[in-house]
């Protein structure tokens, strides 16, 4: 196991551990802080997977913009820490959960890998490592040729979301108290 694999493995374990902490945290603000750390770790993993543009976008867009909005709203609402009530699971639900995890693990091991290799027509050999400076150029070339239509649609979606957010959170003076 080379140095890269060890670092990547440690980062992955760290990401999963941060996620586990998040899922059991009482205070929403510390949960959001943990999610920011999780995103930074994920950005490192993207960087090791030769996706440099994805790594930078992850930090700027996710950790820098989306999570700030989340924390802004949490502090605006000024919530008390939540009481953790995970509810009670019935026996059937536990059995279904274990069965689902089992199916997913089975799909993830050799059976599923063989299927994936044939379905995606992957060769077992690794794809060649891309030159380091080429990532952004390649992403841009793909995004603005094959995915140009999707890109324009996404911009329209963001416009619709902004208008929707303003309309939803607008205070209606006429019947605000009856809501």
């Amino acid at each position, binding site marked *: 196991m080379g140095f890269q694999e060890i670092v*990547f493995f440690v980062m*992955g374990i760290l990401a*999963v551990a941060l996620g586990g902490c998040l899922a059991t945290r009482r205070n929403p603000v510390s949960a959001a802080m943990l999610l920011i750390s999780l995103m930074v770790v994920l950005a490192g993993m993207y960087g090791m997977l030769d996706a440099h543009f*994805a790594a930078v*976008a992850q930090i700027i867009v996710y950790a820098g913009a989306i999570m700030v909005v989340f924390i802004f709203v949490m502090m605006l609402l000024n919530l008390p820490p*939540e009481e953790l009530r995970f509810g009670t699971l019935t026996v059937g639900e536990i059995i279904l959960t274990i069965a689902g995890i089992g199916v997913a693990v089975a799909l993830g091991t050799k059976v599923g890998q063989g299927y994936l290799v044939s379905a995606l027509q992957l060769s077992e050999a690794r794809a*060649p490592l891309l030159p380091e400076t080429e990532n952004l150029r390649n992403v841009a070339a793909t*995004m603005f040729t094959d995915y140009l239509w999707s890109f324009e649609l*996404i911009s329209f979606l963001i416009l619709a979301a902004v208008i929707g957010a303003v309309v939803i959170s607008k205070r209606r003076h006429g019947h605000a108290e009856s809501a």
Partner: protein
Amino acid sequence: MLSLPEMGLYFSFLLFLIGLFTVMFRKNILVMMLGVEILLNAANLAFVSASRITGTMDGQVVMFMVMAVAACEAAIGLAMIISLYRAKASVEADDLKLLRG
């Protein structure tokens, strides 16, 4: 011996489980939305790993689109949470029974 992208796929599976747990078993709607963000990030990790495996850029482009969708989802969701908080003074999912859910 797993390569980096294969390990990435396994970690994305684990992260997806954690996100699913958060969405299903937490009562606070804000934390449930954080769980949705974990789900989207797990999908993104899978996309980037697959992009590394195939050696094409499609996965990274789709990951960028997912990021934009996540931004929209956060904007709309947080607006709805603020509006709900004004109406009910609570962000607990159990308190929202208007639809008899």
